[in-house]
Every structure is written in structure tokens, then in C-alpha cells.
């Protein structure tokens, strides 16, 4: 495997040439959203400039072409995730909507009072709140598997909580707040032994490592396009065909029906049953372009390079006086969440910003996890394959400046 040519890759991302406060932008908020390569931007531009039409309805050339591009992108995503068929790829707004879809359809139809849903302490709010809403509606129980001081799921406790009453395990693949990579393969195997289904929140995983939903044997897998170098407003719900077939539809409207009379409606087949209304066509096509772009570079290469960044960044940040990493799991993605002496995350964020460094300060939509670590907030640098060791050096330098201010 030849190493990644990061200089060349950076040229693919126009925004990386931006300057803020006269300094070159150092973008380290990739867990919030990723930047877009020219391949994606140009694909969307071409779509709107030359190909725009609605899909699945027109008989004219442009509409047929748009439909082809749209369905072509679905196939690309299917290959990208290793799904068995295009029918298992449902387009939604993002990871959040995908989880809500599963809760609102599968959850409402198949869970009853007393059934249990098992999540972990490191879930994003989007994998907590939909289950709470379902709990309040249906009387299911929501259980939370604890994490240890390094931010790893405590598998022993997880196994204990995984009783016969658990119908669904809903777990994050890679934690956005800590970077922890969960052993989802093992989790899925254990859950299946107990007869439970598993939803994996892959929002933070798919841009950084190769994922194969069939090898994992995931029942549902969700992701957001905008964290995968594609536009905002588009995401994917992968579901096993047998499950999607049995699930009631999500929203009602055009495209999700086969025929409608005022007495009765016959629903369309999957995945269209879950895609009511005109979808985000350009977003889907952009997502297809992003997936192509990643395949060309190779996710194994990306994962190897990002691991180098993680190791280098961990070492550099640990050298900053008073810095304490939050999240030190053995298996980690390139996310560095930390607290720094007396300095509050928000002050750190402001000071780094003036050095052109974009990082996240806050609770990262994981308030229960922050409470678990007894911090109101952390500062988080999250990397992508276009980041460099030089940027990490500048981050460390700026953090030293923070310690000077807060001496």
C-alpha cells in the first residue's frame, strides 16, 4: 500500500485554501462535518447546471437521466457498505432521521410494553432521544451500558444487561465525543445470540474506515452524508431486506405508493416505501460522487494515515502542560477530546479560532457522557485524511498559548 499523498489530497478540497483572521484555515472539526472535495462540488454543480429534473416520474430525457444518476448513486452506496442489494439502501436526511425512522416504524410496530432497548453511555443524543420518545409512547424500557474511565464500553456489563428482554441494541460504531471504536462485530454476535436486533450508528465510522454491513451482520446501519465528504441533508439507512419488508412505511406521500384510492393505498416496494416525496436528488448524487472519491483513494489507506495522525497528535497534546485527554480507548479513531487546566473549552475555542484553528468546544451532543466524565464540556480536535502533522504542531503551539493566558 503506497502512502497517502496528503499534499495532493489537500488540493482536492477548495475550502482548505481559505484563510481566517489572516491565517491559513486549520480545520479540525471533522466529526461535526467534513469538507467537500471538488469531485462532489462539481458533480452537484453539473447536476443543477445540466441535468436537473425530478426523478421516477418524467418520461423525458432529463428526468430519465436524473433517475439513473439517483439510482446509480444508490448502487454505489450499496457497494460501499457491502449491502446485499440496492433495495436495502434507504435515503434519508441523515443519521438522525435514519434512527428516528427505525424507532417510528420498526419500533412502533414490533416493540411492546416491557421490551427493552439497550444503548450505551457514549451515544449521541440522536441515539438516545428517539428511544426515550418510544419509551414514553409504548412503555418499553431503555437501558444504558456503562463505559470505563478510558471511554470503552464495559463488555462484561453489556453482557449482563443483554437479557432475553432486549429486542434491540442500538450502539454507536465510533464515538464522536471520545473517538472510541466499539467492537460492533462482537456486540452484534452477542445480541443475535439473544435474539435481539442491532442498529449501528456509523455516522463517525464510514469516513474513516472500511465498513461492511454484511460482514458485521448489522441489522440496521445509519450514516450522514455530510460527515462523509458529501452534502448536508442526505443520509442513509441500511436495513436488511427481510426487516425493511416487514416494516410499515415512515411518511406518507408521493413515491412511496403504488396506487392510491380514497379507500385504500398500496405501498410501493422497498426502498421507495420509505422515501415519500421528492428526495434530495442532488444530495444523493453528491453522495455517490463522495463514495467514488473515497474508493479511489482507498479507505484502508485513509485509516492507516489517520491512525498516524492520532498517534502523533496524542503524543503532541500530552506534552502540553495541564492537558488531560478524555477518551483514551485502546481502539480509537482520530479524535482528541481534552480538558486543559483551568481553561474552559469555550475560551480555548475562541483563542484557537484566532490562530485559524477550527475545533469544537462543548458537550458534542453527548451530555450524559460529559456527566460520566465529570466535565461540563471538552475541547475536541477531530481529524480527516486531509489534515497534517504540521497542523497538529500548530494546534499544540496554540494550546500552549492558552495555558499562558490561563496561567
Amino acid at each position, binding site marked *: 500500500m503506497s502512502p497517502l499523498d496528503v499534499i495532493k489530497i489537500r488540493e482536492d478540497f477548495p475550502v482548505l485554501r481559505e484563510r481566517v483572521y489572516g491565517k491559513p484555515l486549520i480545520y479540525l472539526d471533522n466529526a461535526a462535518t467534513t469538507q467537500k472535495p471538488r469531485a462532489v462540488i462539481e458533480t452537484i454543480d453539473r447536476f443543477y447546471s445540466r441535468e436537473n429534473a425530478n426523478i421516477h416520474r418524467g418520461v423525458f430525457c432529463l428526468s430519465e437521466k436524473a433517475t439513473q444518476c439517483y439510482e446509480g448513486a444508490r448502487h454505489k452506496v450499496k457497494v460501499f457498505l457491502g449491502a446485499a442489494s440496492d433495495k436495502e439502501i434507504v435515503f434519508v436526511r441523515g443519521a438522525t432521521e435514519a434512527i428516528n425512522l427505525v424507532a417510528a416504524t420498526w419500533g412502533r410496530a414490533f416493540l411492546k410494553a416491557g421490551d427493552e432497548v439497550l444503548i450505551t453511555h457514549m451515544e449521541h443524543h440522536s441515539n438516545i432521544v428517539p428511544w426515550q420518545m418510544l419509551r414514553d409512547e409504548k412503555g418499553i424500557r431503555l437501558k444504558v451500558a456503562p463505559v470505563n474511565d478510558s471511554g470503552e464500553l464495559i463488555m462484561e456489563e453489556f453482557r449482563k444487561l443483554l437479557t432475553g428482554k432486549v429486542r434491540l441494541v442500538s450502539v454507536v460504531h465510533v464515538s464522536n465525543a471520545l473517538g472510541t471504536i466499539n467492537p460492533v462485530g462482537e456486540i452484534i454476535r452477542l445480541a443475535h445470540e439473544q435474539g435481539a436486533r442491532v442498529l449501528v450508528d456509523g455516522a463517525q465510522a464510514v469516513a474513516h474506515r472500511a465498513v461492511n454491513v454484511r460482514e458485521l451482520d448489522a441489522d440496521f446501519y445509519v450514516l450522514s452524508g455530510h460527515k462523509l465528504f458529501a452534502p448536508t441533508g442526505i443520509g442513509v439507512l441500511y436495513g436488511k431486506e427481510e426487516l425493511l419488508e416487514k416494516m410499515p412505511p415512515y411518511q406518507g406521500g408521493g413515491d412511496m405508493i403504488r396506487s392510491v384510492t380514497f379507500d385504500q393505498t398500496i405501498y410501493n416496494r422497498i426502498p421507495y416505501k420509505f422515501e415519500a416525496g421528492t428526495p434530495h436528488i442532488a444530495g444523493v448524487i453528491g453522495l455517490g460522487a463522495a463514495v467514488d472519491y473515497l474508493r479511489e483513494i482507498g479507505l484502508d489507506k485513509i485509516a492507516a494515515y489517520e491512525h498516524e495522525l492520532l498517534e502523533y497528535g496524542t503524543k503532541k497534546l500530552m506534552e502540553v502542560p495541564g492537558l488531560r485527554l478524555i477518551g483514551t480507548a485502546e481502539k480509537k479513531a482520530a479524535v482528541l477530546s481534552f480538558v486543559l487546566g483551568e481553561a474552559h473549552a469555550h475560551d480555548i475555542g475562541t*483563542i484557537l479560532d484566532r490562530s485559524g484553528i477550527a475545533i469544537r468546544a462543548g458537550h458534542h451532543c453527548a451530555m450524559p457522557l460529559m456527566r460520566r466524565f465529570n466535565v461540563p464540556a471538552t475541547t475536541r480536535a477531530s481529524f480527516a485524511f486531509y489534515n497534517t502533522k504540521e497542523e497538529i504542531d500548530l494546534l499544540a503551539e496554540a494550546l500552549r498559548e492558552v495555558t499562558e493566558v490561563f496561567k
Partner: protein
Amino acid sequence: MNPDLQDLYQQMIMDHNKNPRNFRVMPDATSVAEGFNPLCGDHLHVYIKMKNGRIEDVSFEGDGCAISKASASMMTGILKGKTGGEAKALFEEVRAMLSRDVNSPVDTEKLGKLAVFAGVCEFPSRVKCASLAWHTMVEGLEPTGKQVTTE
């Protein structure tokens, strides 16, 4: 350091952050108000003891960034002895200072020491931090029992 930052993190602000004044729970307060900034997690309680229409004592406790803590600390120092009306008038002055255009002047006569927060307007995402304690204090003057947020 960048001059805007020097302006924001002045000595006096850093001192109040490190050694906040009136940083305590007040068991005999006549009112307590809670303020929360969900975006950054700044969270504080402001305690007020009114006597004969004047603020006899005011304190705060909570967790937050340097700007929010220093702002709360300096606010409590300056409000003692003021009437509710005077406190509100000062709140309006602070609000005007924080939301003004960078180049427009600050009324240092009315604001006194609080003018150290004049640089905050250069940092739009931090205005809420500086104003949280003030919004909370105003709620404390006429409590509705609601949590105050600066969202």
C-alpha cells in the same frame, strides 16, 4: 497574542475568573434564578437578597467559561446597594455595550469597571457568555421561576 484576544482576556477579567467574588450559595436569599447556556454549558445560579427595595446582597455559583464567570463576579460586586430599577438600567447599558458596533464608543461613565467587557462584541459567539449572569439577575428581580437561557 492577537490584540483582540488581549482585549478579551484582560488582566481584570482573568483575575475575576480565577478568584470570583461573591461566589457562594446564599441560604437566606429572597430570590434565586438559574441561567443556562446550552450551547457551551455555562450554568449558574444568581442569589439576591432584597431589603427595602434595595439589593442588600447578591452572589452566584456555577460553572462556566472565563467570560461568563468574570462577568458574574463583577456584576455581583457592582450591584450591591442598588435598587431593582437601577440594576435593570445597568443591565441595559451592559447589553448595549455587548451588542454595539465595534467602532462605536462605550459609555464608561455609566459602565465603570464593566467597560472591560467592551471587547466582547468582537466575538459574537461570546456575547451570550458575558450576558448570561445579567439576564439571570433580571429574572431574579422579578422571578417567573423559569430557567433563563441566552439562546
